[in-house]
């Protein structure tokens, strides 16, 4: 089975300083990988690199174009639009408008559909942010702390959605501190992959990083 997403000895930098190196793994259909590590160890930076928001310092990311759906800390919601308008926008961007109703149902947002996003609670906003993943129709979810501010029932909702996604041949790369309740997920601890200093043979993060 061909891997959907392969990282080949990837090194990533934040602010011109290498923070992770030698990250290698392959993610195939139906697999979920959970990234763990202390604050500031480079989980978010790694996810942003995989999502294509910043270039890797070294190494390669092998993935077909347009397969990654990125879910960041921020949900990208517009306060003055309603729940369904927010979601319909992303569904239209990804050309998947038929997924709108199932996504609302999967995240238990149907009762809130007409509510303006500004009047949602933090957990409800998060659920709307996660529903966005369902309307992208993309196979690889790259998620940054997806279950922050969710209650137990909502975490279970997310776990159900994630299992369904994996069962359909999707994959997920998730950075989290909280147990997401998907037992089959493999865990990768990033602590051991902390970048060495350049003197010790690590990758040097150039000053001109922004211009390459």
């Amino acid at each position, binding site marked *: 089975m061909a891997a959907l997403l392969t990282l080949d000895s990837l090194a990533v930098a934040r602010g011109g300083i290498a923070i992770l190196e030698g990250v290698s793994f392959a993610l195939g259909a139906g697999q979920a990988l959970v990234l763990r590590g202390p604050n500031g160890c480079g989980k978010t930076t790694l996810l*942003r690199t995989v*999502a*294509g*928001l*910043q*270039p890797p310092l070294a190494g390669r990311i092998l993935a077909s174009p*347009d397969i*990654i*759906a*990125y879910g*960041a*800390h*921020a*949900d*990208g*919601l*517009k*306060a*003055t*639009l309603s729940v369904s*308008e927010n979601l*319909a*926008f*992303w569904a*239209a*961007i*990804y*050309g998947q408008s038929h997924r709108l109703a199932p996504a609302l149902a999967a995240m238990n947002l149907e009762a809130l559909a007409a509510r303006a996003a500004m009047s949602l609670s933090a957990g409800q906003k998060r659920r709307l942010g996660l529903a*966005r993943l369902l309307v992208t129709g993309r196979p690889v979810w790259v998620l940054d702390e997806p279950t922050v501010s969710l209650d137990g029932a909502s975490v279970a909702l997310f776990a159900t959605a994630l299992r369904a996604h994996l069962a359909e041949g999707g994959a997920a790369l998730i950075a989290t501190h909280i147990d997401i309740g998907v037992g089959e997920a493999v865990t990768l601890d990033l602590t051991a992959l902390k970048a060495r200093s350049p003197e010790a043979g690590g990758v040097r993060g150039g000053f001109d*990083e*922004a211009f390459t």
Partner: protein
Amino acid sequence: MIALLLRDLRLAVRAGGGFGLSLAFFLIVTVLVPFGVGPEGGTLARIAPGILWVGALLACLLSLDRIFALDFEDGSLDLLATAPIPMEAVVSIKAFAHWLTTGLPLVLAAPVFGVLLNLPGPAYPWLVLSLAIGTPALSVLGAFGAALTVGLKRGGLLLSLLVLPLYVPTLLFGAELIKRGAEGGATAVPMLFLAGITAACIALVPFASAAAIRVNLR
């Protein structure tokens, strides 16, 4: 892409979207200038084209920092960058939405404001024409400035300093077009220059804006 345009337009007219703000600012400028300059009709009529164009420029500037800053703050710019639309298209559409909510109302309302400045009669069609041709360049160049300053706190002032010099050619030819039109002179040259500047901006500047956004998102 239509979805993005519709969303931006919808956000602009919802509460706090800032639609109409530029128009109100334009109105205030054109009301204040006669108070400052004095009531002599001749003086006003002579400076009216310039005042109207400077007013349009400043009104346009007011809402520029919102083009990307709001999307950056709530995280949707990151998500748009990973969406299946090229960043160049995102930038162009957001600039177009900005023009529809700022530039177009100015074009349509300008004749009314021209009355306040005692603009001579033959100048009115040229006023509308020059603003219609010139203001798209203001939005596109403004989007470039907004893209450069997107990650900065209080980037609005820096944005003005960056963008206003870029507006000079449009201002020169726009005001010149109205002046010549009012006097019945040859209008082809300033009109072609104005249109050429706008066309070049629309064609080229989105690439620079998209590159600036990509660097700022890192």
